[in-house]
């Protein structure tokens, strides 16, 4: 629960910080209507209005007008109620059940207890190695990606002409479909006639085999990812965060004699720490889920050098049709992601600063 509250809070902080689609004032202004408090505020971790309001809601159903309101509310929510059941909760239950079976789609599933989980953890050579590859990838892509995005955002946040053109140019790679990026980088990384090795060769350095070499395939996939990550969503979110830092704070620090670097470390970074946290949580989840790029650029090879965990799940399910085993892998994966998110939420109150005060 607390994780959901946290994510909700961060989403709200950012949506109000952007101030475009979701005006800041109307979300955080005190003294709004009771209904708005019930709707918007009751999710804040310490909700004073939540429980009484809930009782009022239930009691309120006694009047015909409130009954009508409730009925229409449920009617309007109906698409999602059905969608939640059919495409989320149903599949979750089915996936849990299937993970305890052996199922090849043709013959009916047979119950095998926890043996899929045991096999994954002890009897599958590619399980640990694919998990390790995925972490190796994330350990580079997340910090290098985030700091690069922040650097670009800081550069673009200066009050000089033409920054919007540069912003667009940096952003375009992230719009490129992962499949297209995978294919075009295969060609850029071509060991014999590609332009990257031409450049490296003309500097007199040895030319790597890139996507074709077991040692260089992972760095190559990381480079392709960074091309899309640096100027992408993270940069835009950082830019929105930077624009929300009050100029008075910088001025005050400058009066006290703080230079640019000190102001960045002691004013900018703390003020945008919620944005960093948001990008970090999503960046780690995104990096651990890496799939399409590797599937297209390397097919997981060579010699399983880029065999990431999502590829392992995919092949177990749709290559070997071991549906039960693949469901067990998916649940292990979900657990890993949840643990990472929870740890970050726990660590967050040590370094994330909310200017509004309420968390």
């Amino acid at each position, binding site marked *: 629960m607390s994780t959901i509250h946290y994510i909700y809070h961060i989403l709200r902080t950012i949506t109000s910080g952007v101030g475009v689609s979701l005006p800041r004032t109307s979300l955080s202004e005190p003294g709004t209507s009771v209904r708005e408090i019930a709707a918007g505020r009751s999710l804040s971790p310490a909700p004073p209005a939540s429980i009484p309001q809930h009782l009022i809601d239930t009691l309120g159903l006694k009047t015909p007008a409130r009954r009508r309101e409730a009925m229409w509310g449920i009617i309007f929510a109906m698409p999602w109620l059905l969608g939640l059941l*059919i495409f989320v909760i149903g599949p979750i239950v089915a996936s849990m059940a299937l993970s305890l079976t052996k199922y090849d789609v043709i013959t009916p599933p047979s119950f095998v207890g926890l043996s899929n989980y045991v096999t994954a953890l002890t009897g599958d050579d590619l399980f640990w190695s694919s998990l390790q590859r995925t972490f190796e990838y994330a350990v580079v892509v997340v910090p290098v990606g985030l700091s690069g995005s922040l650097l670009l955002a800081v550069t673009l946040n200066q009050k000089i002409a033409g920054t919007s053109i540069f912003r667009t140019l940096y952003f375009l790679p992230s719009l490129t479909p992962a499949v297209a990026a995978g294919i075009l980088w295969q060609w850029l990384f071509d060991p014999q006639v590609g332009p990257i090795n031409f450049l490296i060769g003309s500097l007199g350095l040895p030319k790597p085999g890139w996507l074709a070499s077991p040692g260089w395939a992972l760095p190559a996939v990381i480079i392709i990812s960074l091309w899309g990550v640096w100027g992408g969503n993270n940069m835009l979110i950082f830019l929105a965060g930077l624009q929300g830092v009050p100029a008075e704070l910088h001025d005050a620090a400058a009066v006290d004699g703080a230079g640019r670097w000190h102001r960045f470390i002691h004013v900018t970074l703390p003020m945008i720490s919620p944005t960093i946290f948001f990008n970090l949580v999503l960046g780690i989840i995104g990096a651990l889920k890496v799939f399409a790029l590797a599937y297209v650029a390397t097919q997981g090879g060579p010699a399983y050098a880029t065999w990431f965990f999502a590829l392992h799940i995919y092949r177990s399910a749709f290559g070997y049709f071991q549906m039960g085993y693949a469901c067990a892998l998916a649940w292990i994966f979900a657990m890993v992601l949840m643990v990472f998110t929870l740890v970050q939420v726990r660590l967050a109150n040590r370094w994330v600063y909310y200017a509004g005060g309420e968390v």
Partner: protein
Amino acid sequence: MVRAVYPLQRPIVRFSGRLLVYSYMTILAVVFMFPFFWTAASSLKSASDIYIYPPIWIPAVLHWENYPTVFHLVPYATWFLNTVTVVTLGTLGVVISGALVAYSFARFRYPGRDLLFLITLGTMMLPAEVTLIPSYLLFKYLGWLNTLKPLWVPAWFGGGAFNIFLLRQFILSLPHDLDEAAIVDGASYVRILQSILLPLMKPALATVAVINFIFGWNDFLGPLVYLTSPENFTLAVGLRYFDVTPNQPGVPEFHLLMAAVVMGTAPIIALFFGAQRYFVEGVVLSGIKG
């Protein structure tokens, strides 16, 4: 304050500082743009030019015929049409059903609403891999495998947690007096949504539409799992199919593949330039999907 002490240095420092910033930004832009340039240049080379070393940066003769050739080798026009179909129907579904559900969460009181909203947010933390296999089995049971339906029908069931969240927050930011006045005047809820809220929600709906259009266009895992025969492919899986097609004499070679990549990427970039305002606002809120 520091500037006031050295007034004479100011213009010089400023000028050279700016020159430095602009050169730095330009170098970065060249690095970011180079893959696009190389792709476009390669797509216009002849089959013999592409393997020349050292590389030819700009081909002397531009081979525009590479583009029509792609259409002869693979059902590219069909892939394009399939992609447009999936993405348009999916986006419509998200916008229409998402607006209804967001309206419910933002403006109605009923028991269990807040719990339902919490569960909705909770679904955002679940990786797609968990629900993928049961969904596949469901669509198999329905006989929808190798059709486009699994790729757009689910979008009509509320459009997913993120879109609902974004639209709900937007409705909450609209003044409530408008609907209350309409209720007093005897307007129905459907009418309030139709004539009061939807017109005001246009920017948020545009944002949701643009984001979903781009995510749908780039989606790879869904089509990869659900589509099996090439005539049903979307562009994403089609490009990959073209990439790995066993080499018949001379095809596919990188100049043709690059032409296919250009045609698969250009529509999204064009859309971005057309709807940049909505996109940039929206993408800031959309990280959750990435």
